[in-house]
């Protein structure tokens, strides 16, 4: 097996190989570290590489596994974290000059949970500054580039997580998602990412962007890998005020049950065609994916997209108001430390009134009811993950982004679980993602649908030429 083949194994394959002693945790870790060293200079997916720590953790995992102390499918698997998850003793920057030298004295719950599951920490990943806005050109760390074409963005804000997985630099990663920040880079980098139900995964120790919209969740190279990671991460945490007392099912239990008879809701009318609509190539790829799902036995039911379209306005109003409230004190004392992109977006929140914010939270409740009512007719809702392919850095136009429908925002507002799975490429070989949304706490339905689609197609087997 070549180093590249080793680095592109899924977690499921790597876990099997470790137990069959075809390779060891130390070999997996060294392969990742060598690959990071050789190719990450052009991607900038890592801000901090914790090489010595990773090798020490790998040696411990090797010893434990070989002496029969198996902690489960993540034991001995090298992973990396978006640089807003607090890591005790390891710099956590949020890709910002504000926190450039912050070394937390505690771990985020998710950091600790993955360590407990036996993962090996390769390092901390680049992101959009404070998970906000777009790629940061004036941050202390370079913007992350897309492995499929380094002239293009990865989408964000979990940009390093998407790029590192697509480039074979780690086997799993954590992202966070307030308006699409797990699903957008998953789609643009042709990997899998799930935003679980609000409250499913603890946000304790995750630097907030917008408390009532922030979700923590896993990203990986296959649907099953995301299910494995979510299994470790899910559960109640008293330190997160939004944490849910919800039963945690076996997320892999229904993976192979198929989707015969599954009712898929398609909220096309009044949404897909708003303003500039969906880019033609993205739409064409999405329609092909829809045909594949129908060939697998799913039934498509058209839904009214209007409440989904309106949801973006409530999501953005809440997001900018909460983001400014969080950063207000720091901004007023050291405005020069914020990059221009995040500064401009965040300051919009300073001009909203209390009534504006509360109206958005009232609209949230009203829209939530209208969107949830659809689940009386369908079991999942389907959209493209992003309305257009990833932009080139030199033609980035945030105004145009606002003129395309956002397919991810509504599911932060509603807190519903939503997964992005690779579903094809444009003529320029840029990835397109398919978003599957299920009712609250029914991540198993997201996984089952995404797995059926993934196994019926070959998109997840493609790797970028690096």
């Amino acid at each position, binding site marked *: 097996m070549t180093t590249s083949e080793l680095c592109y194994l899924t977690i499921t394959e790597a876990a099997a190989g470790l137990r069959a002693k075809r390779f060891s945790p130390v070999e997996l870790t060294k392969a990742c570290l060598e690959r990071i060293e050789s190719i990450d200079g052009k991607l900038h997916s890592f801000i901090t590489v914790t090489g010595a720590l990773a090798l020490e953790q790998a040696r411990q995992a090797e010893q434990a596994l070989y002496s029969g102390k198996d902690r489960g499918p993540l034991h001995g698997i090298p992973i990396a974290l978006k640089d807003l998850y607090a890591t005790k003793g390891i710099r956590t920057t949020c890709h910002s000059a504000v926190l450039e030298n912050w070394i937390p004295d505690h771990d985020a719950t998710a950091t600790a949970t993955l360590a407990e599951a036996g993962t090996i920490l390769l390092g901390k990943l680049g992101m959009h500054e404070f998970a906000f806005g777009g790629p940061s050109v004036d941050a202390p760390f370079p913007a992350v580039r897309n492995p499929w074409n380094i002239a293009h963005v990865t989408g964000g804000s979990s940009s390093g997580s998407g790029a590192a997985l697509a480039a074979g630099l780690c086997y799993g990663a954590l992202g966070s998602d307030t308006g699409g920040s797990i699903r957008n880079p998953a789609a643009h980098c042709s990997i899998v990412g799930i935003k679980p139900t609000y409250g499913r995964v603890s946000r304790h120790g995750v630097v907030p962007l917008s408390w009532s919209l922030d979700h923590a969740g896993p990203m990986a190279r296959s649907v099953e890998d995301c299910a494995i990671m979510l299994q470790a991460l899910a559960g109640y945490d008293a330190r997160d005020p939004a944490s849910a007392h919800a039963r945690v099912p076996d997320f892999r239990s229904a993976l192979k049950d198929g989707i015969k008879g599954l009712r898929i809701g398609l909220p096309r009318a009044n949404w897909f065609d708003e303003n500039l609509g969906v880019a033609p190539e993205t739409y064409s790829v999405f329609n092909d994916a829809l045909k594949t799902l129908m060939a697998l036995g799913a039934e498509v039911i058209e839904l009214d997209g209007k409440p989904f379209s*309106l949801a973006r306005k409530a999501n953005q109003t809440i997001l900018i108001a909460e983001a400014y409230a969080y950063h207000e004190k720091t901004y007023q004392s050291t405005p020069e430390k914020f990059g221009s992109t995040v500064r401009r977006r965040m300051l919009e929140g300073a001009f909203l009134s209390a009534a504006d914010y509360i109206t*958005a939270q009232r609209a949230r*409740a009203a829209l939530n009811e209208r969107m949830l009512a659809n689940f009386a007719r369908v079991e999942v809702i389907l959209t493209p993950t992003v309305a257009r392919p990833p932009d080139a850095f030199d033609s980035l136009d945030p105004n145009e982004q606002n003129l395309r429908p956002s397919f991810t925002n509504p599911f932060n507002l509603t807190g519903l679980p939503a997964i992005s799975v690779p579903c094809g490429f444009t003529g320029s070989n840029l990835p397109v993602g398919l978003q599957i949304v299920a009712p609250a706490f029914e991540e198993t339905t997201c996984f089952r649908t995404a797995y059926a689609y993934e196994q019926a197609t070959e998109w997840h087997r493609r790797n970028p030429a690096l």
Partner: protein
Amino acid sequence: MASEITRDELRVRAVRAGLELSEDELDQLLPGVKRAYNQADDLRKLVTNADEPAAVFAPARSKRE
């Protein structure tokens, strides 16, 4: 209409919010603030007196439980 906010009004509101912004910064901010106000106005049309905010305070819940 809030969406018709001018640069001069934005400057006044910035001072009220404790922000020291340059003229360039005000220019850059104006379109985004207009959009934010328009969004808030659109949301006002959606809600009725029966709609309470989605945020709920749970008095019995402690972060240290």
